[in-house]
């Protein structure tokens, strides 16, 4: 591939990353685990290859996929916020129900539960987002390389055949060559 010519990576990564992040952020659909992000990386490379005339290398795929992964992490985090609030409310109700049966539970059950559902502070939240972005970037890069393997190669254009030279057979021989 030409070194100067690079595929457009941001828009494909934005579209595919947003889709993958949205799908992985929804609780029921999230059961496919990291596959959404790997799929997002593949989709980003597919979109990039459509607008790029040359072949995409595995390195191009890794870069585009990693970018899609980072975008997916941000989108996923944003989408997860309302669901986390919902989960916290459900957990609160569950704890209230537990309290009715507290005599049958171990002495430190409340401590165990609170330890388990402790809400992170904003600082922890952003640190978690950075780590998630790193994890997503790796998974997206894997998907991007797979995508480059799938969609990166364009069929080679047919080799241009030399046009027939009109009257070539009529060219008189140079007498000096004989």
């Amino acid at each position, binding site marked *: 591939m030409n070194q100067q010519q690079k595929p457009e990576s941001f828009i494909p990564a934005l579209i595919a990353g947003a889709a993958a992040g949205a799908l992985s952020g929804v609780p029921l659909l*999230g059961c496919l*685990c990291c596959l959404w992000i790997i799929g997002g990386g593949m989709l980003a490379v597919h979109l990039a290859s459509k607008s790029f005339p040359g072949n995409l290398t*595995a*390195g191009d795929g890794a870069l585009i996929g990693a970018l899609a992964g980072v975008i997916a992490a941000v989108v996923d985090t944003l989408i997860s916020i309302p669901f986390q609030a919902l989960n916290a409310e459900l957990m609160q109700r569950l704890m209230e129900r537990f309290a009715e049966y507290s005599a049958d539970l171990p002495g430190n059950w409340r401590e165990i539960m609170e330890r388990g559902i402790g809400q*992170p502070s904003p600082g922890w939240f952003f640190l978690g987002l950075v*780590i998630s972005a790193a994890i*997503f970037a*790796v*998974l997206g*890069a894997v998907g991007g390389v797979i995508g480059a393997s799938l969609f990166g190669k364009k069929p080679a254009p047919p080799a241009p055949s030399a046009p027939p030279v009109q009257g070539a057979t009529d060219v008189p021989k140079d007498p000096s060559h004989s």
Partner: protein
Amino acid sequence: MLKPGMKNRTKAWRIYALTLTGILVWLTSLGLAPYFRSRGIRLNSLIYSAFAPTCHQIPSRSFHICGFPLAVCGRCTGIYVGFLAGMLAVPLLKAIGRTRPPTILPLIVWTFPLAADAAANFLGIWSSGIWLRFGVGFLWGTILPFYLLAGLNSLFLREGPEKSGRETGSRP
């Protein structure tokens, strides 16, 4: 002075070592999350929340350490352990320094058990135990390093023309 081919080879080994370190840190953090939770160390919530977007983290589908689930489910644990196994197999298969990923056929073959198990669970045909989930995840994880390393090599080993050979871009 090192020849370009030798320089690329050293670089390829460095990329491999860094990736191997990364997956080891990754796996260690999965195990540290339940350990920290059992000791009441707050760092546990950071690790759990960092892995939450990549996994449903359902406790009944996760392995447990110190009485608490790992930071990801059994299937994801299998994928990451399989990734480590694949990384260890890379030097044995002389795939260090390859810049071209394998063809898509091995990926399809390796993905089939995972896809079949996930689909069967989703459709209610059968319900896999945690070890089957781990197994299909493990199998799938073993193929991934060959793609990731090819991508990283392609990114960082661009300078200098690569010579032909098993370690420089030939397909498996």
